[in-house]
């Protein structure tokens, strides 16, 4: 679903992306490298850093927590399960938990500022963070100067979309 196209659509675009596989990985630091090898994906240690390889992406959310995106989950879960005995971890598929929005356009930082108390402009391109939009926990990926993805828990999506629609109208009206 995309928002209705108005004449201000160039300044701000809000689209829902097609579903992709999403996994939550929890692993202690001493087993991180082993998991990274099994998944074929470097797992960055700095919170907010991202890596990508072969259509897979990893975002470090916490000292022992990563969010992983992939075209499909089964190859990753099988590879991780194979080393479970020597590298205990939790790898849980959470694909249906969230809907991902793509937010882009010249006004996108203003849109995010209406809901996020954190200074999103200070988030470097190519990094990400888990934060809060109004009262909903969201994960934000900065893909470019005015290009973001935002993962929103599906039950909070109507609330977030309603707030965004209001902010979009206010921005379009020059408020």
């Amino acid at each position, binding site marked *: 679903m995309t928002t209705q196209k108005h004449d201000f659509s160039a300044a701000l675009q809000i689209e829902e992306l097609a579903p992709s596989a999403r996994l939550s990985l929890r692993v202690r630091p001493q087993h991180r490298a082993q998991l990274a090898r099994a998944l074929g994906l470097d797992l960055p240690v700095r919170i*907010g850093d991202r890596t990508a390889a072969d259509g897979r992406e990893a975002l470090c959310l*916490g000292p022992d927590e990563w969010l992983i995106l992939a075209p499909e989950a089964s190859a990753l879960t099988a590879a991780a399960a194979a080393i479970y005995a020597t590298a205990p971890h939790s790898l849980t598929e959470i694909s249906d938990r969230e809907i991902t929005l793509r937010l882009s356009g010249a006004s996108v930082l203003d849109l995010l500022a209406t809901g996020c108390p954190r200074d999103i402009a200070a988030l470097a391109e190519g990094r990400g963070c888990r934060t809060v939009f109004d009262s909903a926990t969201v994960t934000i990926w900065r893909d470019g100067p005015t290009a973001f993805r935002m993962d929103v828990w599906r039950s909070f999506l109507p609330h977030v979309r309603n707030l965004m629609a209001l902010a979009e109208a206010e921005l379009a009206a020059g408020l």
Partner: protein
Amino acid sequence: MLLIHCPYCEETLPELEFAYAGEAHIARPADPSALSDEEWRDFLFIRTNARGPHFERWRHIHGCAQFFNAVRDTVSDRFLMTYKAGAPRPDLSPKEDAE
């Protein structure tokens, strides 16, 4: 709004991303059934109620999700420092001597 430094994210971020989680450095008794009712009451309910620097737990709930500890002055509401969970209670002795 208060700005709080998360020792895991190594960023100073708005209070709205965080949740308060009570006084810090209160260890659960290793053998609860060996305690008297008074000792158990003290563990559950009796807190410092400090006027001045207070050692307290916070959680970066809309962020890295980690618990950590902070020293906040309850008079000025200023955060004096934050540090990782499990780290020893920092020595603030010049301030404690003044009590």
